[in-house]
């Protein structure tokens, strides 16, 4: 399939934006997270559409700034970042690759396809370090708004778990 010039431009812009990582969890790109919703090119100007994760997530402003920087480096001057609220982000949008990267980084990923149902009375997450299914909650609120703190009952190590949202 041959891409038109516009499609090539858009693909290049997407690639640049998609490489931006979450400043709090630098192993995840905004594409892995599902925060990157769309990239549009019109009249040579790029518009990137992102959606916030948690209402008060302080990383969103940094992410917007880094998208602009990444696009400028890729040769797109004056790119615009627009935030959209609808449809609302959910942890179900985390890609499978993203979940694996989280686990390898030591953060238990949220169960796929669980969404709202797992928010209350969620089963204990598996330990990302030793793989044990036995863990306990230490603190429902962790180091960032998106994480809770757990402890493995087998290897005894504490670990962060991504909250279902």
């Amino acid at each position, binding site marked *: 399939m041959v891409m038109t010039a516009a499609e090539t431009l858009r693909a290049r812009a997407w690639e640049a934006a998609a490489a931006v990582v979450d400043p709090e969890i630098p192993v995840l790109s905004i594409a892995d997270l599902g925060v990157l919703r769309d990239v549009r090119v019109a009249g040579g100007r790029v518009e990137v559409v992102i959606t916030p994760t948690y209402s008060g997530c302080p990383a969103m402003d940094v992410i917007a700034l880094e998208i602009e920087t990444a696009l400028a480096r890729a040769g797109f001057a004056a790119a615009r970042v627009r935030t959209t609220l609808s449809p609302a982000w959910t942890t179900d949008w985390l890609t499978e690759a993203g979940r694996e990267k989280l686990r390898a980084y030591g953060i238990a990923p949220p169960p796929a396809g669980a969404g709202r149902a797992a928010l209350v009375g969620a089963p204990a997450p598996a330990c990302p370090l030793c793989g044990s299914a036995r863990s306990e909650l230490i603190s*429902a*609120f962790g180091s960032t708004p998106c994480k809770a703190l757990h402890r493995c009952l087998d290897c005894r190590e504490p670990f962060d778990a991504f909250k279902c949202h």
Partner: protein
Amino acid sequence: MTHVPSREGTAAMPGSIQVAPSPPVQYVLRRADDALILGHRLSEWCGHAPMMEEDMALANMGLDLIGQARSLYAHAGTLEAAGHDEDDFAYRRDERAYVNLLLVEQPNGDFAATMLRQFLYAAFALPYWTAMMASRDATLAAIAAKAEKEMAYHLRHAGEWVVRLGDGTGESHARAAAALDALWPYTGEMFAVDAVERAAIEAGEGIDPSGLRPGWRAMVARVLAQATLAMPEDGWMQQGGRQGRHSEHMGYLLAELQHVQRSIPGAVW
């Protein structure tokens, strides 16, 4: 110094904005103010909570609420179309222009009072935002889709503490019971419907809060029973926050909240 006269004959502070009295704008501002003021109250605990985990919990819950407030203020600004942004609404109004529930401005008191306040509000806000996801106002529905998940988390956390404190020691039970009795007269305002609420409900954009009362009572009764706390009688209910008539605590809260913007107008980070 020249003072701009505002409604009710009081003088507006220099640099204050005047917000349109339009019902759709006021409807959104009410929710935004609830979230900002409760979020501010929770932020006052930062560095003072009884343990590290609760310090993080209170700051996190405050952050959720201030995040909700930001989205709601931005939406109010769009509806008002007078060029006011979220900071204008948060920092540049006089006390009488804030339209939050009296419940959320009540002082933190002890840890039991803070957790009871959070529980009573979250037990209302969760079904409120869940219902709001079906609003005809697409932005409100989108804000609601996030807020309801956050409020479910707050409800669980605060509810667990109500049970722990109520069904704890004699001292923690007494404190939780005292907080419940002190806060109860502020709960009726959550379900009140006036012209602003009615206009939004009729437009299919707002939620009828009176319809949420039985579910709220059932949730509160269940947790209080587990906490061995007696459910107070519904007596005189204190109201006025939705009309800008606040308790004596609000002025002190705003003095701290607004201090930097009032001293150095337009200051940015």
